[in-house]
């Protein structure tokens, strides 16, 4: 079976990527500032909703029920979209989705498209695939624009340029905007308002003249055929409204059964992702709205494989809010690039190895990119038990032999209390011989931390000697 493509090649294992990121003090500073800002905002708007627990439970159950009946709802969605004048295409993998989109664009005679931020199209590497067919895709979300102009990679689900601070963004705009269209103003400062204004001017003309747009969708309603896109800047509305042709690439797990279900997700998603009561703009359209030509491309790309997994399938409930990234202490210190996938952070650590398999060293290392602190599970608006899935994936990943030997030895000792007692007595006698720095992988501890002093007497020896302290 071919390996599912996820937007970037699987390279070095996570710990090596992470070690480099941890030493990048600018990156650490940017991430710390951004994640702490958003954490506080999310916490305050979630605390404001008196029925958050009930919304979360309903969100979990609706998604679970949808996945359980996914075949039915996908067929219903297809019927509804078609009845409303849209066209539905099915793509089994990234290559097929890219081919379908490229052919649709070519059929319009256009060579330029504008894009709304979309995880699905990043996952399949659509921009690169279109370029190979002579079609230029212009990213219009501010953060995506920063990434595209900087020839960079996204590092966050919601804010792909979270690793960049305002000064770096100013540099990128000043240097690269001219290569893609209207140059940045000569006197551009690093004031966020000035940077947003520069993006507005840079993209304005492009929005008004481009004839084809490509988007993803946050939700697709089976009952009505309605597509839903949440955004902030208005670039989404520009792309969804002005062009003559709209192509939406949507993962099959994005379907929701009924219109009413939105009453849950339109509360869960904005509060979890940007920490707002509601995001500035949400667009909903059904089929060929206002005379537009509409194509829906339903994408599998490994999702049905995840669906087959009893424990792992809950990852498909994900609504891409990124609350788990923002709260994760590991993500906060490594950033998204260390995860080697368009899906970074805790959700990426369970989604990527499931979608791509654990053939590479990187993908095998991802389930271990967590201290299992549980913060991700606590904030997840659809209650994905990420720590449990991580542990499950760890049990399936092949282990290095030295670790296997160590774990087997520890298991052997711990299997009999007598063996443990003998080890403890030996440890007590040899306790002065423990070196300050340990060799091999254990050195990771002693590089920065002292070892605890081994006691003369273990608890069980004390218990036996004193009859539980009674003597």
């Amino acid at each position, binding site marked *: 079976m071919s390996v599912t493509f996820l937007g970037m090649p699987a390279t070095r294992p996570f710990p090596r990527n992470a070690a480099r990121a941890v030493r990048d003090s600018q990156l650490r500073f940017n991430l710390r500032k951004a994640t702490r800002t958003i954490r506080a905002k999310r916490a305050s708007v979630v605390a404001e909703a008196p029925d958050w627990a009930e919304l979360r439970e309903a969100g979990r159950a609706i998604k679970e029920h949808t996945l359980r009946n996914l075949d039915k709802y996908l067929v219903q969605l297809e019927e509804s979209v078609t009845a409303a004048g849209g066209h539905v295409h099915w793509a089994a993998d990234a290559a097929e989705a890219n081919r379908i989109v490229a052919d649709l664009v070519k059929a319009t005679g256009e060579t330029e498209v504008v894009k709304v931020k979309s995880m699905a199209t990043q996952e399949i590497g659509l921009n690169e695939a279109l370029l190979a067919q002579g079609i230029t895709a212009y990213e219009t979300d501010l953060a995506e624009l920063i990434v595209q102009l900087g020839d960079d990679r996204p590092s966050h689900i919601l804010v792909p340029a979270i690793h960049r601070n305002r000064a770096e963004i100013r540099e990128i705009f000043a240097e690269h905007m001219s290569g893609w269209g209207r140059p940045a103003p000569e006197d551009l400062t690093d004031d966020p308002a000035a940077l947003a204004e520069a993006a507005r001017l840079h993209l304005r003309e492009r929005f008004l003249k481009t004839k084809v747009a490509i988007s993803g969708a946050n939700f697709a309603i089976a009952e009505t055929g309605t597509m839903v896109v949440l955004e902030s800047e208005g670039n989404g509305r520009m792309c969804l409204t002005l062009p003559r042709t709209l192509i939406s690439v949507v993962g099959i797990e994005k379907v929701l059964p009924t219109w009413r279900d939105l009453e849950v997700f339109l509360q869960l998603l904005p509060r979890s992702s940007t920490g707002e009561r509601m995001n500035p703009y949400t667009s909903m359209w059904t089929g060929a709205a206002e005379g537009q030509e509409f194509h829906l491309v339903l994408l599998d790309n490994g999702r049905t494989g995840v669906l087959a997994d009893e424990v792992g399938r809950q990852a498909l409930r994900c609504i891409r809010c990124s609350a788990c990234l923002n709260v994760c202490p590991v993500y906060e210190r*490594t950033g998204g690039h260390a995860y080697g996938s368009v899906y970074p952070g805790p959700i990426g650590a369970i989604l990527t190895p499931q979608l791509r398999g654990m053939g590479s060293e990187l993908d095998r290392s991802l389930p271990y990119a967590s*201290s299992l602190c549980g*913060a991700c599970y606590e904030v997840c608006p659809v209650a994905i038990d990420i720590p449990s899935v991580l542990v499950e994936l760890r049990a399936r990943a092949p*282990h290095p032999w030295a670790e296997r030997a160590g774990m087997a030895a520890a298991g052997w000792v711990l299997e009999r209390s007598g063996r443990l007692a003998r080890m403890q007595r030996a440890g007590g006698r040899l306790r002065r011989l423990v070196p300050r720095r340990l060799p091999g992988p254990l050195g*990771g501890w002693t590089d920065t931390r002292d070892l605890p002093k081994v*006691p003369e007497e*273990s*608890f*069980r020896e004390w218990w036996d000697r004193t009859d539980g302290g009674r003597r």
Partner: protein
Amino acid sequence: MRVALFVTCVNDTLFPGTGRAVVRLLRRLGVEVDFPRAQTCCGQMHANTGYREEAVRLARRSVAALRGYDAVVVPSGSCAAMIREQYPKLAGPSGPFADAVAHVASKTYELTEFLIDVLGTTDVGAYFPHRVTYHPTCHSLRGIRLGDRPLTLLRQVKGLELVPLPGAEECCGFGGTFALKNADVSAAMCADKVRAVLDTGAEVLCAADNSCLMHIGGMLGRQKSGVRVMHLAEILCSTEAVGVR
């Protein structure tokens, strides 16, 4: 009431003072504990590192050792979470082992739960005249949800000045083998925790888990900070008569 102490392998081997403190504290409160000699380790390290077979063997042995008691007291939020949250997953939905797990899990209490929920006491008569800060630890906080039980107990300790720990709910970066497999990230997390502890000006950092304390204390020690780490049980065990440890 027959009460078993599940001391945990880390406390048994490296921090026997914590186990002794639990025994003395409970005796002072009129509870005699039993130490089932067959116990070793709950299996968390194996389970969380992906060695399920070994973990199941250790879970079976722990459940067998702890069966038949009215209560099992664990001076570790993490190991209590292992028994209550993870054992049922390892045991599967049904069968004799699942039944035994359900029984033992329902009787298992972390120390502060046992003191407050079972014994109904918040003042254990302790005396500890020091400035103390408390780190909640992830598995105590989000796993078994100890809530403010430890703080409630600490507030009743005579002479103790409790200072809040900034960013208390954040992980210290221990995470079992995470500290070795992702040593750089783990150390970075620990460094932030250490800074927060030092910012409080506390003399003592306490927690309901010695593994996290071993991690943070290892860095506090390496930095020669002078801040001591102590398990909560050892503070609660201290009295004017006995003194510390």
